[in-house]
C-alpha cells in the first residue's frame, strides 16, 4: 500500500483562542501513541502532529479547517480522538 493513501478526517478549530500551547501538547501526546505518522494540515501546510512546535506553526486560529491524517488503519481511533478534541473546542467552550 503506498503512503499517499492516507486515512483522514476533517475538523475545524472552534474555540476562541484557536490552537495554542496546551491543546497542542495534548494532541502531541495522543499522536505519539500512534503506530505510524499522524499529520495535521490546514490546506497549505502539513505538520507532524507529534510535535507541539510543529502544530503551533500551523497557526490554526479560530475557524481554521484542519485535516487529520494517519497512515495506518490501526491509528484510526487516535485520529477520532483528536477530531473529538477539536470538536469540543479543546474543552474550552464553557469558558467563553
Amino acid at each position, binding site marked *: 500500500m503506498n503512503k499517499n493513501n492516507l486515512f483522514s478526517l476533517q475538523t475545524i478549530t472552534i474555540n476562541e*483562542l484557536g490552537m495554542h500551547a496546551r491543546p497542542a501538547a495534548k494532541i502531541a501526546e495522543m499522536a505519539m501513541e500512534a503506530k505510524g505518522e499522524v499529520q495535521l494540515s490546514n490546506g497549505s501546510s502539513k505538520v507532524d502532529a507529534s510535535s507541539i512546535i510543529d502544530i503551533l506553526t500551523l*497557526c490554526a486560529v479560530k475557524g481554521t479547517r484542519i485535516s487529520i491524517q494517519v497512515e495506518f488503519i490501526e491509528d484510526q481511533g487516535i485520529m477520532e480522538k483528536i477530531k473529538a478534541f477539536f470538536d469540543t473546542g479543546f474543552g474550552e467552550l464553557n469558558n467563553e
Partner: protein
Amino acid sequence: MNKTGPAQVILRGISGSPGICIGKAYLVDREGVNLIKRYPVSEAMVPAEIDRFKNAVTKAKNDHAKAIEALDDDLGENLNILETHMVLFKDKMLYGKTLETIAQDRINAEWALRKVSRQVKIMFEQIDDNYLKARVNDIVQVSDKIMYYLVGAQDIQIKDINKRVIIVAHDLSPADTSQIKLEKIKGFVTDRGGKNSHTSIVAKSLKIPSVLGLGRATVSINNDDILIVDGSSGIIIVNPDEDTLFKYEERLERFEEYRADIERDSHLPAITRDGITLNLMANIELVEEVVSARDNGANGIGLFRTEFLYLNLKRFPTEDELLQKYKEVVEFMNPEPVTIRTLDINGDKVIPYIDSVEEVNPSLGLRAVRFCLENQDIFITQLKAILRAAAFGNIKLLIPMISSVEEIIRVKEVLNKAILELENQDKIFNKDIPLGIMIEVPSAVIMAEELASHVDFFSIGTNDLIQYSLAIDRSNRRVAHLYQALNPAVLKMIRMTCEAAWKKGIKVTMCGEMAGDPINIPVLVGFGLTNFSMNSASIPVVKKMIRNMDFKLAKKNAEKLSGFQTTEEITSFIQEEYKEILPYKETDE
C-alpha cells in the same frame, strides 16, 4: 568590522541610570547563562555527546516534574503551562532535531541545541498571530532549562558573577536585575528596555550606570571588549581609543566628586530656603534596599513594591514568609512609616507560575488589584501578613490600579474578611492602618473626589498614569521619547488629583519616577505637593534641589505654567527659571 585592531565604536541608547563606568564586557544570555561555546566532536565521541544531551534533558525534566509536584492543585491553569513544557522537552522539533544535529554536524550538544532552538525561533517569528508568536517563549524556557544542565557546574548565573564586569544582555528581567550584586558589577547595557522600564528602575536604585535600548549591543560587543558606559548621556563606547579613554577617566572622577558632594548633605532636612519642610521617602523593592534608603536620608518608605517575593519563588509565598519580610522592613524603619503596596503583577511583571500568557495586552489586563480581587485567597494571605506586620511598626496600606469606586468598596470587603480571619485565629495584628490607593489610571483622576471619600490617602503613580494618559508604552524604544512627565495633560491630571484630595481633607504623595527627577520638582512643589517617594538614589539630588529652592517662588511659577500649551514650552521655562540650581549634566555637545 576591522579584524586587525578593534576600532572604537559608539552606540547610542537610552539613559537607564546616570553615572560612568569603564570595564570589560561580559555577555550574558537569557536566564543569565554564559554565551555558548562551540567545539567539534569526533565521530567516535558522537554517542557520548548524545548521551550527555539525553542526560541533561532527563535531569531538566525531573527537575521540572518536581516543580509541578510542588504546586498546589488549585493552580490549574498554571499546571497546564508546566505540563505543556513537560511534553516540549521531548518534542521532535527540539529533542529529535538536536540529536540529529549533534550526529550530522559533529558538534557539541550545547551548540546543537542552540542551533535548533534558533531555527525554531525563526520559524515562530514568521507567524502572523501575536499569541502564537509569543509561544516561542515556552520553547526558549524549555531549551534554556536543558542548557542549564548541559553547561553544568561551570554555568554562570548573574548572581554568581565574581568579576568586576559590565554586563551586556539582550534584556534583563526583574528577577535578573534583582540578583545583580552591586559590588560585583560595574554597570550594564541591554538591547531592549526604555527609560522607565522596570530594568532601569532597579538599576537606579542600585546606583550603577546603565544604558538601555541599544538595539544590537549583544551583536556588536564581544566578551572582554573594553567598554565605557556613560549612563548620563545614554551612550556606550566599545574599544575606546586612548584619547577617549583618558577623557572619560577624567569625567568619571568629576562625576564621583559631584556625587560625593551631593551625598554629603543627604542627611540634612529637605527644607526650602523660605522654610517649608518637605517629606522625601524611598521606593523599595527588595528588603535589603532599606539600608540604602536610610543612608540616603529617606523619611520612611513611600512605596514598598511587594512583587519580588512572588517573582522569586516557584509557588505563592505563605502568610508567614510574607510577614517575616514585611516585619524586617517595618522594624528597620520604625518609627518612620512604611507604605506597603499590595501585589501589582501581570503588567510588566509576570509571575512564572501563574498563567498569564493569553493576554494580548497585559497592561490593560487582569493585573494588580483586578488580579487580587479575582484571586481572593492570594489577596487575603497578603493582607493578613500586612496587618500582622503592622503590630511591629508604622504601616500604611496602598492598593494599586484602582480604576473605580466599586473596586475600593470590594477591597474593603476583602480587608474586613482578612481582619475577621485574624481575629478568629487569635493572631496579633493592627487593623488601624491608613488605607490609600494609587492614582495611576485616568479614570481614577476623573473620579478622584468620589474616591477620596473612601480612603485615607492618595499616592500618585506617575509611571502608569503617564503611560495610560498619553497611550505610550514606556518600554517601547520607538515611542519612549514621547513619554513625558512634563506634558501639560499630565500636569493637569496631577493638579486635579491634588485638589480633589485636599478638598476632602486627605493626604497626597507622589511615588512615581517623576518625583525622582529634579527638573520636575519645582513644578510639583509649586502645585503644593509636599510628600514624595522615589528611588533612594535620587533622594540626595532632589534634596539638594529643594534646599536651593524657594517655595513661594515655585508656587508663583507653577501658576504661569497653565499658560503653556506644549511640553517644550514648559520644559524650557523650568530650565531657564531654575538653571542655577538644576543638577550638573555633562554631555558631549
